[in-house]
């Protein structure tokens, strides 16, 4: 018990002392995850919108596929991308392996199905009167899509937050693609794994506390968004004009 308490105290001291290595590791995690989630949102957002609002053959199969890919093991993503990025792979000449960009690629791939599925679900669950209302106001496809995004914005934000939560906490792909290189590709999760194996439990705990704080903040934000969505839905019902 003394070991745990003393480690916790040391971990807090490291955080409060703004230890450079702790800060660099936390910053690497944050900027790579934020870049990855931005890329994933830009790619998966329109996909989710099309799947959620569209009516085409195979739509259900696409939704099932996205649902399945949400549970994709991170090491599998790492393994496949490693094959592409390694020296013998088709993207090998780019020299991206063991750089932050390889890490970002892995995180983006992991976030894609999560964001696409959540956006599709939010769009599919939107009020069925939105599209005919916009059509009768004279809107074309692009205007309908933009307005639909505006109407389900909290669902889309929840999708992005959920994707961010997944990628900042993953370790498999980050380890395999980033290589856990100090001051370059060392993230909170890969660093925790390394420091624990080295026996520096206090340092790993300091990183763990930061990771938990980020995860908690993300979850609180997600909870607030979901609460807002529920308020929005009950607001429509209370107005007496809801379905």
């Amino acid at each position, binding site marked *: 018990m003394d070991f745990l308490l003393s480690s916790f105290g040391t971990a807090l001291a490291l955080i409060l002392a703004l230890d450079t290595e702790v800060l660099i590791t936390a910053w690497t995690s944050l900027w790579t995850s934020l870049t990855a989630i931005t890329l994933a949102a830009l790619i998966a957002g329109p996909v989710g919108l099309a799947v959620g609002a569209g009516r085409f053959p195979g739509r259900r199969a696409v939704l099932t596929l996205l649902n399945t890919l949400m549970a994709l093991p991170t090491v599998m993503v790492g393994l496949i991308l490693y094959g592409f990025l390694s020296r013998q792979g088709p993207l090998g000449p780019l020299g991206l392996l063991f750089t932050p960009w390889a890490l970002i690629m892995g995180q983006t791939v992991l976030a894609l199905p999560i964001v696409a599925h959540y956006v599709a679900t939010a769009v599919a669950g939107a009020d069925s009167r939105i599209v005919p209302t916009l*059509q009768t106001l*004279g809107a074309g496809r692009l205007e309908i899509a933009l307005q639909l995004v505006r109407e389900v914005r909290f669902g889309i934000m929840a999708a992005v937050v959920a994707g961010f939560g997944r990628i900042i906490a993953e370790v498999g792909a980050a380890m395999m693609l980033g290589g856990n290189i100090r001051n370059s590709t060392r993230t909170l999760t890969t660093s925790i794994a390394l420091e624990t194996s080295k026996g520096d439990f206090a340092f790993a705990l300091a990183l763990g506390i930061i990771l938990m704080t980020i995860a908690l903040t993300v979850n609180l934000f997600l909870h607030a968004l979901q609460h807002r969505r529920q308020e929005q839905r009950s607001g429509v019902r209370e107005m007496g*004009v809801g379905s």
Partner: protein
Amino acid sequence: MILTVNNLELHQGHGFCLKVDHLSIEAGRIYVLAGPNGAGKSTLLQTLALLARPHRGEIRLAGEPVFWRSSVLRRLRHRVTLLQQNPYLLDSTVYHNLAVGLKIRGIRGYEQKRRIEHALLAVGLDGYAPRCARELSGGEARRVALARALALQTEILLLDEPTANLDRETIEIFERLISSLPAQGITVIMASHDAGQPRRLGADVLHLARGRLLTVRQGDAARRTEPSSVEILKWP
């Protein structure tokens, strides 16, 4: 004729079929679609609003045949709008709700503001522009939806039971407003269960039953609103 329908057929689930052999709508008049529940009033309005595609038949808007291609529909939908029985207000301010259709038509700046203020004044919601649409009562929301349709100044205004479940006073004000529209060049086609409404509005009656247009009864022209009484109707 502002709108003509020939040999229209639209099949829906449960064996329902809307069938209109011929219908001519004259510009600047009010038509009331009457008939029991399930007669096809809302379906006909959806079709005339170019939201539901018929399986057969032809619709002509101001002489132009309607082709069900997105570019054509988009252009023609700028001339006709539908106020649905259960209207949807966008999750934003009242102003934004009214501005959406105007922005789509390229109406911005002073003209947009003027139209919005004018429409809100007409439905008695002057000063409601900054309010959040989701915080309005059911009656207020219905009035905002009507204002949104009025602001567009389309040639044809389709109303699906606009006065259902409203109090007597509000109905009278709605009717005054609707009866003023033909003088502004707007043709109104509205579904209604109120047997006295066609007489009060001086409207022609289109009677539907089981998806068939049965009769067209001429309204009392003498009761139609004189153009001099229409400019801005203020809510009392």
